[in-house]
């Protein structure tokens, strides 16, 4: 091909956009070391005091723990249900497959705010006690479509005759699922689980309307933004940035490995 005169411009633009995406995160990290409790640029001095304060905060430990519980339960349920749904639609959906899939994906078209308040009215109508369980139920609604989407995309490349071969060799429905379908879906399962985890771990709006006394980490940040004296927010934000960055990297790498493994 000829030399491409547009490419350098596109490259420069992309760099600028990445800068736009990351600069705010760096600013937050910078402010987390600010000695002054007033967020004024440029920062004065350098301190780790806000981090120390953060680690001493037991409410934060509780929130972190709650977030983990919610995220892990959400991952477990939405991955199990979502993979099952995708396989079910793929196998038995027949001519209703399209409609079933569209139905499963509708929550994606609904803003989180509305998912949250709809659940709140529902819980209100049935006088349900709000707890982490009601939060998890909402998070699963939010993540399930993503799991189904990811698993369905993977299943498009799935040769049905592999399942038939397993059946032909004497495997039962669940053996087929366990030994043939699931290994094939592994990269999708990993991707879906990671997706659900981050979505759930970061969710504030649905949680806001469905939680009772239990704070999750994003709710804690939200609450700090509403009531707190903010420098600690910078530190906790920086920590979440670093943690999720590391998590994303590990996830991405394991995902890529899983994909390489499955193409063999």
């Amino acid at each position, binding site marked *: 091909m000829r030399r491409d005169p547009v490419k350098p411009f596109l490259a420069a633009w992309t760099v600028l956009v990445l800068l736009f995406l990351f600069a705010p995160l760096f600013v937050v990290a910078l402010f987390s070391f600010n000695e*002054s*409790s*007033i*967020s*004024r640029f440029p920062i004065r001095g350098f301190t780790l005091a806000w981090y120390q304060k953060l680690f001493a*905060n037991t*409410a934060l430990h*509780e929130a972190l*723990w*709650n977030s983990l*519980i*919610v995220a*892990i*339960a959400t991952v*477990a*349920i939405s991955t199990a249900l979502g993979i099952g749904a995708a396989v079910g639609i793929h196998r038995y959906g027949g001519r209703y497959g399209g409609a079933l899939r569209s139905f499963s994906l509708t929550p994606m078209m609904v803003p989180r705010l509305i998912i949250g308040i709809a659940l*709140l009215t529902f*819980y*209100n109508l*049935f*006088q*349900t*006690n*709000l*707890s*982490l*369980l*009601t939060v*998890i*139920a909402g998070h699963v609604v939010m993540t399930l479509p993503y799991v189904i989407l990811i698993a369905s995309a993977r299943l498009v490349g799935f040769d049905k005759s592999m399942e038939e071969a397993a059946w032909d060799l004497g495997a039962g429905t669940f053996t087929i699922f366990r030994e043939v379908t699931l290994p094939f879906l592994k990269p999708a399962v990993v991707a879906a689980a990671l997706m659900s985890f981050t979505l759930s771990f970061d969710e504030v709006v649905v949680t806001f309307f469905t939680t*009772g*006394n*239990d*704070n999750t980490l994003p709710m804690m940040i939200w*609450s*700090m*933004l*509403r*009531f*707190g*004296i*903010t420098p600690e927010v910078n530190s906790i934000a920086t920590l979440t940035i670093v943690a999720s960055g590391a998590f994303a990297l590990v996830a991405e790498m394991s995902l890529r490995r899983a994909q390489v493994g499955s193409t063999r």
Partner: protein
Amino acid sequence: MSRETMNLLLPSGMSRRGLMRLMAASGLLAAAPASLRQAFAQDKSLNYFTWSSWGAPEFVADAKKKLGIDLKPTFYSSSDEMMAKLRGGGTRLYDMIVPVQNYIEPAAKAGLIEPLDPAALTNKKDIFQQFAESPQWRVDGKLYGIPFVWGANAIAYNRKETGEVDSLDALFDPKYKGRIALRDEPEDTLAIAALKLGIKAPYSMGEKELQEVKKLLISQKPLVRAYWKNVADVQNMLASGEVVVAWSFLAVIAPLRRAGVDVGWVWPKEGAIGWNESITPVKGTSKLKLVEEYANFTLSPEYGEFMARNTRYAPASKAAIARLEPELVKDLGIDINNVGRLVFKDIPKDKSRWNEIWNEVKAA
């Protein structure tokens, strides 16, 4: 596991059985450890739905130290939010709240709160009589609270930028265009606009006065930087210099001064918006005795002193004020003789009309 924890864990009513089966089937019960830990912990804990000031870590630590009570605070930032949360299922979550006096009647009528046993409140004797005996704390002859604190929402200003301020005029002064903050709350904001217009009883305004108030607030909008929702918002705006004069809670003053901002606090001469707050049990709490114990504690001189030193809010307890150095009392501006300058909060005659007017102002 106690019944009560079961109730905390499980959705109640009609849907309980169905949901429970569903969730158990999904292995969801595995997600319960946080509540489980609560259950196994020695259960001297109170779910405390409160203003951020009263649930700050030092108060949690103080309650633990002096009473052995574990406060589990959840915060609200307006009385409306408190009411909405209680109605939306909060009565099943919380043991006690800290209502402002004007919400006692609606809360009691809506079945959201539980009366206190006057006999349990032995520290009541130290409370200023005009607060303790206020009819607003009693509904149908039952006592729903004895205030431990009193105060006013008023003007906070950046002394360096504005000099001394003494009037609501500062909030309407074009000099401070784009550097004024008001509270995103009709109960405060419509009332101060009314005071500015010279309306003496803001909470019983009629439609004509409301329209005037609306007009004033809309004309003021170009001057306003933002309407704050939470105390942190206004505090940050004052701290970072986004605004120089703001309608505010007193709570912002101490942290701002600590951060080196020379911030002034004044009850404008047209009047400030006064309030009392009390510990009040939430309807159906299983820990009424413990709530009463804590309520009584907040009326004690020790608590009042601790509170005044930490938050600069004024104790309702005479005995508490007696423990403070006179300079501090002066600095806090807690002169009980000034109470007459306050317009105490009340429920507006047509509350939803107030909300509408306020939304119209915001959308204008």
